[in-house]
């Protein structure tokens, strides 16, 4: 017996229904494909991004040397030489520039007076043989000039001088990894062409990211440039940023979660923080420029690490506050009640019970905020991080450059050598971020274990 209970003919039945159903299912599966496809696109974009960076960071280069490194030292590694050997090389190949090196790197007087004043004045604060004190630099013998350089210049500066002024490595043409792998024939042809002008041009396989790149200061010559100063600048800035933003951010979070009554002021603070989190970073840059760099110049010394650190600190403050609030809120109130129950004051309860329990969350949130600050570029550009700095910053009041700034500057140059070192610097930046995030994870787990006893 058929038990059809369709009581009306309002709805499609039988074959009509089946046909409709097939159509509905088809439409569903097409859209389902699209949904999963959008995730695939996101993954592909990520892969393309990484490959694109690696693609520019390694590959063949056509390179010319003024002097082959192997002619200077067996094996060609000038990193193994000491100061005297390096100065010796400078003396051999750039003898006439020795006074210039003294002037550029050691002189404390105005360049125009340099050749006229005595060494004791020109090189005040540096070491030099006492008997030379009253002579001018030009009156010294080459050997004496050389020994002053060897005694005073840091190794890495000497190495840079040898590299740029003696070895004179010049990359005529860099190739991407892709070109290096698949267009070898074209590269060889171009090498032959280059050798017509520069007989000793040769092909090298080069990773732009190498040890020298990490320890060399910035340079206008891409082959000699490194991220050392930028890396130090970034670390300094982040140090200041966290030094400022962590206590203030956690303090604000404690206030809002533990002390604040539900009044107007506190509601205002809450909404305000949420809105600050959405203000574009470049606007923080304008704030830093007007207030920290200009109005407070007498304290901050202008475009310095401290100005940048505080600007980024303000920028990540809302993130730290919101994350810390969440961590504090997650602490069960039974812990607070237990502490109050044995007669602890409010602050004792917070300091001894609430904060330790919330710390893993707070730390993770802070490190994530830090990672954001490390990559922030726009505010630093606006407050005017100096781009051409070759000396390591030594105090919060030093001028500085930073990794993302370097990346921006190098990317903005049209020559492909600069694109290549920008890619190398990006890898350094990403590794730094990776380290931060790994630290966050480890720290959180440590903390959790130690709390469990």
């Amino acid at each position, binding site marked *: 017996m058929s*038990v059809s*209970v369709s009581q009306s003919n309002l*709805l*499609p039945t039988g074959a009509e*229904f089946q046909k409709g*159903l097939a159509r509905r299912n088809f439409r569903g599966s097409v859209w389902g494909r699209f949904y999963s496809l959008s995730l695939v696109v996101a993954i592909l974009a990520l892969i393309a991004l990484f490959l694109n960076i690696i693609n520019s960071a390694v590959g063949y280069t056509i390179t010319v040397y003024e002097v082959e490194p192997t002619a200077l030292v067996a094996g060609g590694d000038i990193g193994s030489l000491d100061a005297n050997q390096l100065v010796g090389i400078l003396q051999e190949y750039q003898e006439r520039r020795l006074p210039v090196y003294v002037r550029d790197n050691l002189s404390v007087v105005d360049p125009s007076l340099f050749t006229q004043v005595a060494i004791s004045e020109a090189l005040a604060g540096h070491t030099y043989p006492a008997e030379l004190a009253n002579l001018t630099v030009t009156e010294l013998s080459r050997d004496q000039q050389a020994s002053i350089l060897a005694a005073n210049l840091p190794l890495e500066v000497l190495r840079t001088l040898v590299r740029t002024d003696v070895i004179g490595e010049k990359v005529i043409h860099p190739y991407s990894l892709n070109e290096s792998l698949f267009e070898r024939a074209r590269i060889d042809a171009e090498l032959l062409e280059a050798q017509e002008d520069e007989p000793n041009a040769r092909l090298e396989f080069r990773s732009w990211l190498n040890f020298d790149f990490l320890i060399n200061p910035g340079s206008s010559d891409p082959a000699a440039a490194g991220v050392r100063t930028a890396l130090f600048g970034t670390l300094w800035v982040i140090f200041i940023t966290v030094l400022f933003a962590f206590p203030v951010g956690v303090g604000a979070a404690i206030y809002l979660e533990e002390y604040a009554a539900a009044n107007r002021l506190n509601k205002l603070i809450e909404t305000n923080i949420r809105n600050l989190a959405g203000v574009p970073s470049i606007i923080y840059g304008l704030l830093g420029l007007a207030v920290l760099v200009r109005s407070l110049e007498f304290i901050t010394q202008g475009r310095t690490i401290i100005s940048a650190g505080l600007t980024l600190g303000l920028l990540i403050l809302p993130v730290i506050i919101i994350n810390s609030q969440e961590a504090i809120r997650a602490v069960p109130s039974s812990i607070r009640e237990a502490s109050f129950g044995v007669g602890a004051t409010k602050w004792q309860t917070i300091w001894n019970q609430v904060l330790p329990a919330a710390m893993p969350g707070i730390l993770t949130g802070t490190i994530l905020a830090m990672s954001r600050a490390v990559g922030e570029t726009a505010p630093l550009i606006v407050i005017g991080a100096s781009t051409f700095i070759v000396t390591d910053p030594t105090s919060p009041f030093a001028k500085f450059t930073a990794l993302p700034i370097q990346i921006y500057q190098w990317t903005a140059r049209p020559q492909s050598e600069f694109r290549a070192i920008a890619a190398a610097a990006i890898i350094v930046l990403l590794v730094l971020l990776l380290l931060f995030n790994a630290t966050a994870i480890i720290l959180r787990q440590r903390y959790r274990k130690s709390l469990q006893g």
Partner: protein
Amino acid sequence: MTQNGAYAIQLKNVDVFYGPKLAVSDVSLNIQTRRITAFIGPSGCGKSTVLRSINRMNDLIPGARVQGDVTFQGQNLYAPEVDPVEVRRRIGMVFQKPNPFPKSIYDNVAYGPRLLGVRSKAVLDEIVEKSLKGAYLWDEVRSDLKKSGLALSGGQQQRLCIARTIAVEPEVILMDEPCSALDPIATQAVEDLMKILVKQYTIVIVTHNMQQAQRVSDFTAFFSIRKQEETPGKENRWGVLGEFAETTELFSSPNSEETERYIRGEFG
């Protein structure tokens, strides 16, 4: 009861698993056409699980698996060529908590017919009116069909959900504790409605309320829990069908002591 073997749904040796865990085992029962069948039993014995296996609602739970035969008018519901979407249109479901869509009353009821491709306003109007009347809600809401379904009272919401279900003209309606979130008056209204609906539909209802089962149902299935100690301290529990009979029979002379203790309210 005069039944001549017209079974709407037959379950034969049905096991249901959630992942590796056996939830109900070896359930065999026949559900008669245009009768109300009640599922009773202690919490966790798998009433909802069995109910949801009848319209393939379990497909939506990752890892859920049904073994054995569930047949609907002689067709195996779990045969590979069967489309669960069609199964659910013909075997509708009303849930424990009223769950109207956050849309107007009209749109709630018209939801199913629209899915089926009904576009004509006149036809939709007719279906909505007929369904709301069928759920005995029409008089209360006719003046304001644009009102949100969420703005109704709990009992009205549940009747709206029933109206929404009958709007697609299913053959079977499964109800999982449809009155547990309702007050006595609303419960009364829904029970009255069931008695009217059963003239056209096959109804299966899960309930924890013994009186309700006796008041409304023609047949009752009692599920119970089996336990087995796997390793010390770790217990396996799964549901089985304890007893299945006409309601009057099951309540007046239960077969087993377990059933009797349950319907007397001694456990569960």
